[in-house]
């Protein structure tokens, strides 16, 4: 029989459960063919006398089994084929035995060889059926050819050759079919790739058989002369075959590595690595695990149903097992993985593990479960998976790094877009007051004497007012630039809140129309912070209140915020229109002015509250906006304080945490 070896690996049936059903179908169809041929054989005319039955049957069975166990390896160009000398024995058997004896001996010999190879039941069934069908075909053809040629002794030899040719063709078709089913390759491609090597192997085998038969005709013991030659060639080619199998395994490893290179998506990379690992050691399922960007181990499970994320239990079990093996690839019983963690895995007998485990710079853990009983290839499999693990680790690391770079890039793009938007907004906000300044000056020059005194005053006023707005905008932009670049260093100094709030009220009373009242609750007189920045925030908040709340008091309150923690809060309360709850966070954005129509009249820049928020962040404080009871805005700035000595904490511990608005009646003047 010709064992086709196009991919360099013996087809290991049963390893791929999804195709198992198709292989069973192949076995069944072979069996059906065999039954059909059996009927044909009963109808076939007897060709010659039985010689030595049943001793001959036993002898030939042993011969078939022996040649099944001693395959010889031939290389032919870039292809390789295995010659098993089954044709040689078959030629001799056809010439010297009754058809039924040939069938029994060939099928029995193949079965014995299969058993000796400890093949899986499915593979055993397939091989036996394929051989049985092919031998039956050979026997039927041989019998008919002999009969057609009139049963002459001279016709026996060509009839045997034709019979063996039929056997070869039949087993060639069988092997191609099984390759098609197991490896999914196109039937025509398989035929083309292996036709010449299969023909050569059969020719060699059949020629040896014919030589043996001719020698037997000269003397019954003469074929034994061939025996030493066959044994030497068989042993030598076995060594060659092992070498070639290893070579081809690493060729596959190389191909698997090239298929996993350059993968960019983390889970995708793990899935491809698992798929390649599974096919490298012909397993039923494979798991590839590696830590993601956050250092959490993730794994992808690949089996006949495709790939999916492996359960955390399975990932942990695989990583533990790889760690146990100390980073050395090994094939161990599948019970090394706890039953619970194996819930997602198909039934299996062994597991091949490889990878560096938790140790190493590029950690990875690979596990492939196999449902084929152990054989002598275990070490070779472990070795190839171990070599592949290094590549899988690199693939996972690359994918992880790619993800990091991609995210950094996306972040940068967002940042750039924000910058562009800000620049466009700044451009617009700078041009608007500038247009008014230049427009009023141009009007004054252009109309000159045609303007009455009132209008002249109006345009001078306008130029001055809009000029100031421009100046303020530029100052705030510069401040924001400083804050954004973190150039504004933050001091920690004792600040007297009583003095600061009263000074602030004095400075702004004119702007606010004498509506500002300040109060500092006991325990909030002193605060540790950057005084200049705190003052800037408070000025902006009070100006904001003066601008948007045309009536009512504007209260500035300092009070101990959290009992025990010692935090100090400063609150600015107005009784203006207020801000709807869903808009309260938006007021802290750049160039957001909720009531657009008031923008120009109030001369706001749209940067005041944004600057407040940024400065507050710099101070490590928190600035929030709430509704004033009865309507209006209440801005609260909470300044965290370092823990201080006992006498500072005791009074604060008894304070209420609610805002002490009631401290100041609306009518009372508490202004310093």
């Amino acid at each position, binding site marked *: 029989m010709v064992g086709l070896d196009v991919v360099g690996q013996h087809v290991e049936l049963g390893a791929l459960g999804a195709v198992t059903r198709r292989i069973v179908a192949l076995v069944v169809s072979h069996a059906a063919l065999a039954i059909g041929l059996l009927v044909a054989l009963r109808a076939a005319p007897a060709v010659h006398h039985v010689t030595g039955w049943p001793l001959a049957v036993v002898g030939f069975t042993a011969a078939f089994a022996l040649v099944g166990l001693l395959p010889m390896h031939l290389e032919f160009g870039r292809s390789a084929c295995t010659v098993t000398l089954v044709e040689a024995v078959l030629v001799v058997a056809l010439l010297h035995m009754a058809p039924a004896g040939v069938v029994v001996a060939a099928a029995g010999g193949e079965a014995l060889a299969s058993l000796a190879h400890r093949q899986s039941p499915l593979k055993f069934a397939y091989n036996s059926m394929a051989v049985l069908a092919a031998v039956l075909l050979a026997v039927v053809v041989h019998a008919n050819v002999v009969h057609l040629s009139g049963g002459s002794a001279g016709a026996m030899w060509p009839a045997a050759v034709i019979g063996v040719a039929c056997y070869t063709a039949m087993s060639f078709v069988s092997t191609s079919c099984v390759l098609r089913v197991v490896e999914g390759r196109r039937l025509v491609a398989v035929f083309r790739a292996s036709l010449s090597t299969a023909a050569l192997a059969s020719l060699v085998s059949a020629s040896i058989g014919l030589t043996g038969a001719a020698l037997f005709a000269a003397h019954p013991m003469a074929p034994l002369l061939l025996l030493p030659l066959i044994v030497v060639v068989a042993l030598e080619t076995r060594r060659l075959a092992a070498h070639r199998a290893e070579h081809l395994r690493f060729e596959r490893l190389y191909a698997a590595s090239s298929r996993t290179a350059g993968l960019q998506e983390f889970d995708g990379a793990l899935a491809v690595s698992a798929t390649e690992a599974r096919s490298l050691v012909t397993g039923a399922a494979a798991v590839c695990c590696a830590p993601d960007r956050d250092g959490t181990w993730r794994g992808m499970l690949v089996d006949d149903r495709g790939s999916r994320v492996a359960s955390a239990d399975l990932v942990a079990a695989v990583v533990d097992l790889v760690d146990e093996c100390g980073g050395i690839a090994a094939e161990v019983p599948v019970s090394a993985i706890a039953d619970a963690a194996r819930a997602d895995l198909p039934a299996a007998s062994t597991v091949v593990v490889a990878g560096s485990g938790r140790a190493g710079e590029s950690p990875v853990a690979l596990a492939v479960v196999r449902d084929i009983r152990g054989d002598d290839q275990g070490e070779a499999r472990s070795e190839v998976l171990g070599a592949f693990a290094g590549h899988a680790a690199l693939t996972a690391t690359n994918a992880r790094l790619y993800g990091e770079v991609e995210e950094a890039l996306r972040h940068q793009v967002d940042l750039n877009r924000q910058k562009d938007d800000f620049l466009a907004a700044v451009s617009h906000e700078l041009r608007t007051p*500038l247009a008014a300044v230049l427009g*009023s000056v141009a009007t004054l020059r252009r109309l000159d004497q*045609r303007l009455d005194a009132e209008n002249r005053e109006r*345009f001078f006023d306008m130029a001055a007012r809009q000029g100031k707005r421009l100046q303020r905008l530029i100052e705030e932009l510069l401040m924001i630039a400083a804050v954004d670049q973190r150039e504004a260093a933050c001091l920690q100094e004792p600040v007297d809140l009583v003095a600061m709030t009263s000074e602030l009220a004095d400075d702004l009373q004119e702007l606010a129309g004498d509506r500002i009242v300040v109060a500092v609750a006991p325990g909030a007189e002193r605060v540790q912070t950057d005084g200049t920045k705190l003052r800037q925030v408070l000025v902006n908040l009070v100006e904001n209140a003066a601008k948007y709340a045309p009536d009512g008091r504007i209260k500035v309150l300092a009070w101990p915020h959290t009992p025990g923690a010692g935090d100090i809060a400063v609150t600015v309360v107005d009784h203006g229109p207020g801000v709807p709850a869903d808009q309260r966070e938006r007021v802290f954005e750049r160039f957001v002015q909720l009531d657009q129509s008031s923008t120009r009249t109030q001369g706001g820049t749209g940067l005041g509250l944004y600057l407040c928020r940024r400065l507050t962040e710099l101070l490590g404080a928190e600035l929030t906006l709430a509704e004033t009871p009865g309507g209006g805005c209440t801005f609260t700035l909470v300044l965290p304080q370092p823990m201080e000595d006992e006498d500072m904490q005791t009074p604060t511990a008894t304070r209420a945490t609610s805002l002490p608005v009631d401290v100041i009646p609306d009518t009372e003047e508490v202004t310093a």
Partner: protein
Amino acid sequence: MRPSQVRRVLVADDDPDMITILRVNLEAEGYAVDAAVDGQAALDLARGTRPDMIVLDVMMPCIDGIAVLTEMRSDPDTRDIPIVLLTAKSNDDDIWAGWSAGADYYLTKPFQLDELLHFIEYLGTQAQISLP
């Protein structure tokens, strides 16, 4: 002098100072000026008073200038009124958006008062020539 010979200009801008500047200068040139401080008011006034031309800001409350322009160009009654966009939006995309919405002229703030007045005068003579 027939009333139609006094040319009416609608000025729409959310900055009252800008309206004052344009109003004083246009009135000195003999135009009658209507003013609107947001997009909706501009649309209503344009439909109600049929101005001879419009000076339109882009960044305005309610409806922005580009939307006003698009709306007017799709209305047969206001389609032919010449419109000058006068805005602080100055990048290429904004300018292209203005022209493609159907503006007759696009001026960026800060602007040359003479340029605007000359162009408005030019638009006036164009309209006169096209009269039957």
